[in-house]
């Protein structure tokens, strides 16, 4: 919703004027390769446009010097004029080819670079930033927005350049023939240009509405597809159909409105052309009788007027396309301009020391942007090789631990250190290979089970993966799949059950071989027997490494070396399970009582 709202705002023409140039400058600064050979391309374009006025000039020369001379047509003159013009056309056509070839090669190469850079940049943005964007809006930064620019350059851009040139050159040739007639033509088109300018604003707003309605339509269709089970279970197909129809109809109305305005634009151009032709004939005859204009010149003028119509007629459409392309470009640049707030220190960064990692939180406070703190001044130390469980009610801040520890977010105040190295100073390459988190939502890529597990370590063989599943005690489960490691998991892993997806996500993290494993309710949808079994095997295979598990089920806490109890953003208890349960009125005591109530 917010994305389409900004789209509409971007169409506002007043702020458009200044920022169009700014966007172009920013865009060119980002892709300097766009300027490679630009001068040559412009020269080629100008030569190409000369071809357009060659014919009217030839007609004028032919008529005045060849056809209407004393004693009948002079074939020699006509042949010479035609031969020269044909040669000119051969040259201009070739220049046209060369111009387009250069333009497309340079622009597509530059934009592919922009596309890839924007893609990488989106991944470099912090998790919070990524999640604050509407689903799909980041995708359109590297797809439809860039597509809009390339499509414009391929169609509208060429038309715009060629037609602008055509307008200039045509005007120049007209002036050479007769300044009075040129004034008539310009006079006829002046009101049209004013009207078109006016219409163009309304057209931009109309297309903005079309895009907004299209967004609503896509959202509604998406809901009807993703929510199909709910629609069926509640028998609300009728209601859904009505919503769909309303969205479809709303989009159609917006499209029709836009085309009506667009047609008005070309009609105004057409009428202006008629007016110009009529004016040229009247004044032309008067000037001709006066002796200051030949028949050929007047005829050429009538040809030139038609050359003048085309650019004016398509101006509304092309300018609108240009504006869309600029807006798309601006959105891409805006994403690239966002500095990642959780940034990789890169080359200057430090490596994590080898061996098991210990954890230290030093006065850590965290608040989501614009929200109250969810962690208050937390300090704690967790020795290397220990297995720690973090427990607490929903909303207590326990997941925040995991996100700070893996540097998905940076603390608002204080510092997180791994083996004495502040996280902010650790190179991502080192951090990500040593510290791996398994999130609750076991997102899988639309590939096979094997390919998903191999995600972080593409070099692993099928045998190694099978061994890994065996080590996790999941060999039976893997054997039960229709095609074992080669079983496709479907989009987002939806061909597997929610619990099975978590098993694959866990295996994926396990083969990544981290020194610190962070589990964020990673087995919440797995059945108790499997969970306990996994717990045990994980304990065995991660012995000698540090693990931190955010736990919803207290079985995890019971198995941990130490339990950290979080309540309303503060650590209220810590110690082994057996000690913590000794106080039944403590936060942990109550949690445990509730857990027993659920499981006994």
């Amino acid at each position, binding site marked *: 919703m917010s994305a389409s709202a900004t789209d509409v705002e971007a169409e506002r023409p007043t702020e458009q004027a200044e920022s169009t140039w700014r966007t172009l400058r920013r865009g060119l600064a980002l892709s300097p390769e766009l300027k490679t050979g630009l001068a040559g391309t412009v020269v080629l374009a100008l030569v190409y446009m000369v071809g357009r006025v060659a014919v009217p000039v030839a007609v004028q020369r032919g008529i005045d010097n060849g056809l209407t001379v004393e004693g009948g047509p002079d074939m020699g003159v006509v042949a010479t004029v035609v031969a020269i013009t044909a040669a000119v056309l051969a040259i201009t056509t070739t220049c046209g080819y060369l111009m387009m070839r250069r333009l*497309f090669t340079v622009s597509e190469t530059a934009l592919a670079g922009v596309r890839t850079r924007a893609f990488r940049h989106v991944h470099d943005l912090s998790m919070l930033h990524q999640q604050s964007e509407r689903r799909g809006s980041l995708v359109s930064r590297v797809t439809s927005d860039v597509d809009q620019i390339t499509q414009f350059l391929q169609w509208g851009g060429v038309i715009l350049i060629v037609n602008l040139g055509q307008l200039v050159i045509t005007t120049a040739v007209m002036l050479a023939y007769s300044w009075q007639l040129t004034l008539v033509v310009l006079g006829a088109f002046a009101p049209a240009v004013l009207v078109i300018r006016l219409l163009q604003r309304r057209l931009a707003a109309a297309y903005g509405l079309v895009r907004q309605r299209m967004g609503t339509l896509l959202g509604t269709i998406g809901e009807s597809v993703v929510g199909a089970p709910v629609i069926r*279970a509640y028998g609300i197909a009728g209601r859904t159909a009505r919503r769909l129809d309303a969205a479809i109809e709303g989009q159609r109305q917006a499209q029709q409105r836009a085309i009506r305005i667009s047609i008005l634009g070309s009609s105004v151009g057409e009428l202006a052309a008629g007016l110009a032709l009529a004016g040229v004939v009247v004044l032309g005859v008067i000037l001709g009788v006066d002796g200051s204009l030949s028949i050929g010149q007047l005829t050429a003028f009538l040809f030139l007027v038609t050359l003048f119509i085309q650019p004016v007629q398509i101006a509304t459409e092309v300018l609108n396309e240009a504006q869309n392309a600029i807006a798309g470009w601006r959105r891409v640049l805006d994403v690239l301009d966002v500095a990642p707030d959780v940034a990789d220190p890169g080359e200057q960064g430090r490596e994590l020391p080898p061996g098991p990692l210990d954890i230290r939180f030093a006065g850590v406070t965290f608040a989501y942007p614009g929200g109250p703190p969810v962690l208050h001044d937390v300090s704690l130390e967790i020795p290397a090789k220990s297995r720690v469980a973090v427990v607490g009610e929903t909303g207590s801040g326990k997941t925040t631990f995991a996100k700070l520890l893996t540097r998905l977010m940076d603390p608002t105040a204080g510092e997180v250190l791994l083996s004495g190295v502040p996280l902010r100073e650790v190179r991502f390459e080192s951090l990500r290979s040593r510290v791996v988190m398994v999130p609750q939502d076991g997102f899988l890529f639309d590939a096979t089970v094997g390919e998903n597990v191999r995600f972080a370590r593409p070099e692993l063989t099928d045998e190694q993966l099978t061994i890994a599943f065996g080590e996790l005690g999941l060999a039976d489960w893997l054997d039960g799949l229709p095609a074992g490691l080669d079983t496709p998991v479907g989009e987002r892993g939806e061909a597997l059950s929610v619990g099975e997806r978590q098993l694959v996500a866990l295996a994926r993290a396990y083969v990544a071989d981290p020194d610190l494993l962070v589990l964020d309710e990673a087995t919440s949808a797995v059945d108790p027997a499997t969970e306990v079994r996994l717990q045990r095997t994980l304990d065995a295979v991660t012995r000698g490494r540090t693990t931190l598990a955010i736990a919803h089920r207290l079985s995890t806490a019971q198995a941990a070396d130490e339990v950290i109890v979080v309540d309303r953003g503060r650590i209220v208890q810590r110690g082994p399970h057996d000690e913590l349960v000794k106080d039944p009125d403590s936060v942990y005591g109550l949690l445990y009582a509730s857990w027993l109530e659920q499981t006994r």
Partner: protein
Amino acid sequence: MASGTSRDVLGRGLRVLGRAIREQPRIFAVAVTGSVLFGLLVIASAYVVGGVVGEVVVPAIARGSVPAGALALAAAALFGISVLRVVGIFGRRLGAGYMQYRLQAAYRRRVTRRYLDLPLSWHHRNATGTLLSNANSDVEAAWYPIAPLPFAVGTVVMLVGAVVSLFLTDWALALVGLAVFPALFALNVVYSRRMAPRQARAQRLRAEVSGIAHESFDGALVVKTMGREAQETVRFAARAGELRDALISVGRLRGVFDPMLETLPSLGTLAVLVVGALRLRQGAISVTELVSVAFLFTVLAFPVRAIGWVLAELPRSVAGWDRVARVLDATGEMPYGERTLDPAEPTPATLAFHDVHFGYEPAEAHLPGTEVLGAVSFTVPAGKTVALVGPTGAGKSTIASLAVRLVDPRSGTVTLDGVDVRDLTAASLASTVALVAQVPFVFDDTVRANITLDRPGIGDEEVWAALRLAEADGFVAALPDGLDTMVGERGTSLSGGQRQRLTLARALAGRPRLLVLDDATSAVDPRVEAAILAGLRAPTGDTGAAASILVVAYRRATIALADEVIYVEQGRVIARGTHPDLLATVPGYADLVTAYEQAEHDREQTRTYDEVTPLTSGLEVEVDR
């Protein structure tokens, strides 16, 4: 072979266009009339310009006087033609646009209607992205050639008219036209033929680039936590590079053909000058006619392009149409029956499975289809609560889907109060049973609309009652606009637990006679869950109606509330009975539900063992420090 295929595409493309014309004949007639009018006026304008030059300008300049009457007439004719052309443009563009948008809307309605009618098993076989683009870009692509179609039809008429008028003027000039116009036409055909596969390739790559971006950003957290940004970028850049090459190849072809298409009519005009000069010398034509013909060549060049546009879009249109037709022709709807189950007093319903088998069809043909359920039989007696227990992947969610008829069994029957669910009307089924799924789905609408779903008889009072029962009244009351708060796309403004309670309230608000909970209370406190289940069991509970309950659960607390437990493993019912019975007699069941206790017990033993050898662990710590 290749040309055979492209001829085939041409034929099929024309058939798709024919379908469009049959569906919108009147508006198409308006558009074509406008276009033909425009075309004829283009020819007329050439002759008027020629006439004005020959009959008004030349004599006036020769005589040296301004003929006011003739001049006014010429000016009026030129301007009049422009006005009429505007009428033609309006008819053509408005007609073509409206026709295109009407077809798009009509087919979007039909496609989405099919989505609603087709069974869930069909939805399972089709990726979400594919279904979205079927209703969006495929429909758009199918009717894309409609926009230039009337223009192209008018142009054909105009070309015929132009050749006829040329013959009426002079046979020699007509021959020039006969050489140039077909050449122009042929050049357009060749252009679009060669462009079509390139465009298709670019289109396909665009979709692939978008697919990678979608998936990669969806899985951004995994990419980030595993530090795979660089590899993902390489994956994306490779496809973006292919797209770049495809677009450059499209551009190069344009670079070859566009200037040629522009130059060809100019060469025609030059030929007219030469041939015209010869004919003028022979006295066969006048200057008027020569100028007219030259002008005709200039103005005809642009409209001929419209034919090329239509031809160029045909392959894309056919591809889009094929994908749309696949949805429209898909069969296997789950027809609803005629029977209803609406007792005067809403009493709990009885659910029974008789020898139910079920399997998902394989996503890809070469893979074996998996049998998910085999010979499943059980009953949920009226007013009773039955718990469905089993390990991950045992088929519990499938049983839940069958119970509310989201899918139909391969064999066997599912009955409600003794009636096969396939014989029930949609309305009766929906009012009898309610499913709360494992993953909550929330519509981009208000809280109220998400609960009522516009079902009759659910007023604000009922909504609040249901919210209270689901323990969702607290957070809803705290929302800025209460029941009128918009929850955002997929309910993003709510937490997972809040979404779950909202969908629970949605189910309760309909006062179902059978409630199916598919692990739907994991985010709800056990005490709340117990209260909900108790409320539904009581014959005169808060909701005023009682219900039978089928609940998929792992929690001992939930299981303890059940009158009977059904234990499933690998799609088969292994055992059924009360919880204590199963605990005593079914080892698999006992392992599952006592897993935590067992683990605790084992740990205590290990701990005892550890305490015997404290030295080792102590040493380890010391060595580390």
